[in-house]
């Protein structure tokens, strides 16, 4: 019994996703521990993004259950919710493998859009805000403060009024994370956040993720190819290959699991020793 099984924020139970004849994810079960950074790794096409899409409601799973346990005791069955409610009610936020910012809007606007739901309530679904009633003005100021807070965290405060499309790739990645954080999530799902970053940016990303986990009671589930990132920051690693879980444990455990090595080297399990010898890993 590992720590992440005691009080998981998300329980994935027997998740299966089929596209026609192709089983992208097959009978996958794992837990995401509260307050942990959990990494989901696997070779290309293993089905990692598909798992994310199921968790965040973009795909309806063929089978299985996804239970989100919020810190206030609410339980949400994610497979039954439409995508936008998963963010709004179950408090799961995500980023995308191919960055999806609102490129024609400013950086500040991107972060304001992320606070849409509380602002809509504060503006009495626009009517109050339009007439200048209620606390909309104050909520608006608060929302800008939240945005500024995150802009300082990701070091983009000076460029707040620049269009998001003008940012460099690394900045865009960080902005997307900040935008997801502006929805006030309890579980943050990041699809390859370090892809295309240089070593310095990668380091900054680690710091940011550690900060988010520590200061915001947000658990992080991330997909990552870069093993150095995974080994350094994650508490728990789940390995997928061809949609099936082949390993699950601490980074140390996973690193030495022959199944994982076999999957990454692309050979059968019983040939692992032989191949390892050939390439000189042992």
């Amino acid at each position: 019994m590992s720590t992440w099984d005691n009080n998981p924020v998300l329980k994935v139970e027997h998740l299966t996703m089929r596209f026609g004849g192709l089983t992208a994810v097959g009978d996958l079960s794992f837990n995401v521990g509260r307050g942990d950074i959990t990494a989901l790794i696997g070779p290309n096409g293993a089905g990692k993004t598909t798992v994310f899409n199921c968790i965040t409601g973009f795909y309806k799973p063929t089978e299985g259950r996804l239970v989100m346990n919020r810190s206030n005791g609410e339980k949400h069955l994610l497979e039954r919710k439409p995508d936008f409610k998963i963010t709004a009610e179950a408090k799961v936020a995500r980023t995308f493998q191919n960055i999806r910012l609102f490129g024609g809007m400013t950086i500040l606007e991107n972060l304001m859009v992320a606070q849409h739901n509380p602002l809509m309530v504060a503006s009495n679904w626009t009517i109050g805000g339009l007439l200048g009633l209620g606390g909309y003005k104050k909520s608006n100021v608060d929302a800008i403060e939240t945005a500024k807070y995150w802009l300082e965290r990701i070091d983009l405060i000076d460029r707040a009024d620049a269009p998001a499309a003008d940012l460099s790739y690394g900045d865009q990645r960080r902005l997307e994370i900040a935008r997801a954080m502006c929805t006030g999530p309890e579980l943050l799902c990041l699809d390859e956040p370090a892809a295309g970053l240089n070593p310095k940016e990668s380091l900054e990303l680690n710091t940011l993720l550690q900060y988010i986990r520590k200061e915001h009671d947000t658990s992080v589930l991330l997909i990552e190819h870069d093993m150095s990132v995974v080994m350094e920051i994650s508490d728990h690693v789940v390995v997928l290959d061809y949609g099936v879980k082949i390993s699950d444990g601490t980074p140390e455990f996973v690193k030495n699991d022959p199944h994982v090595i076999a999957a990454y080297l692309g050979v059968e399990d019983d040939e692992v020793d032989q191949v390892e010898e050939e390439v000189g890993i042992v």
Partner: protein
Amino acid sequence: MQARQRDSLLVASLKDSLGGAVITFALACVMVGLKVDVASGRGAELFLEHRWLAVATAVIVVFAGRFLLNMFFWKREDAPSIGISGFLPKGGLGTGSANMLKYGMLVLAVVLPFALMFWLGSRGSRQYIDLAILVLTYVMLGWGLNIVVGLAGLLDLGYVAFYAVGAYSYALLAHYFGFSFWICLPLAGILAAFWGIILGFPVLRLRGDYLAIVTLAFGEIIRVVLLNWYEFTGGPDGLSGIPRPSFFGLEFTRGEGGFADFFGLKYNSIHRIIFLYYLIFIMAMVTNFVTMRLRRMPIGRAWEALREDEIACRALGINTTNTKLTAFALGAMFGGFAGSFFATRQGFISPESFTFLESAIILAIVVLGGLGSQMGVVIAAVVMIGGFEFFREFEEYRMLVFGLIMVVIMVWKPRGLVSSRTPSVALSKNAKGISADLVQEGHG
């Protein structure tokens, strides 16, 4: 050094404005200077009228206008080449000059009827005020459609349906229940919004081309229903005798209790025209005001975010269906308001006024003006509707010219005339506009 620069600017500007004036003269000689008319007195004889004064005015206006623009606005080191691109500044307008243009236009719009009256007298100005009313109607329609197409990025080819719903709502309510314009105006807007929602529910699941085709079909369906439901709508005969609006209960009629009588003026039919002008002006300004305010509110930002990336919106917890529906309903509502104004102005409506061509013109105004730009819509409406009416004499050629202009503008400024987006919220006071190249057009 500075003086040298100023000198060369002066010379360049003079050269450029001279070029413009020559071209204007060449064009105006034939297009404005000569007019063939049917002599009313002497049977149906044709005769040629010369209007050299008008030609001179046109030439002087172009010369002076270009000269001033060259000197004070464009301030380009090299004189703008004589060509279409010379007529408008390259890139976006600066905030300063854009603001000046905005307030200039506003002041012009406020004083226009009285200025025209002053110059041309009540008889001569009537036709121009009428034209201004028409332009303003299209400005309002353009602003309404801008919410749907420009902000939310939903391509609606059947916008005229809501215009028709508004017009017929008023006409029918007045016809069957005897309601007055002021009661019908909000009702027409609400009914149009209601139809927007009814249509939106099934349709907004579609995206891009599919959405465009279905909205187009919906526009036609409304028209065909109006055409065929003879007992209720009068079919192709239309509805006539639609009541005119009153000024706080004062009718624009001759004699006792009328508007003129109440204010101790001499009765003149121009009063009503001027009243209609200010009515549509206020309605359009309300549309603009509401849109501009909504842009800075969460719902407006959600519309624009939707245009940029719908999937990202859903990942941020935005209910995209509802967001699209509000855009659709709101656009429809303003269309409905404009429709009831149209009905009361004309006093007669028939399905003929609500053909696909209307939708196309409104959409063209929005696209030419620059998607999402309020100022662009005004400029495009003035140019298109004004141009359309001014060149009425050319009959079928004007469609040709109109098409040509569209092609030229789309080649030269594919994102419309005013193609930069103002951020809805900014930390610094002088935040710059966002170049249109970065802004998405929406995909459904």
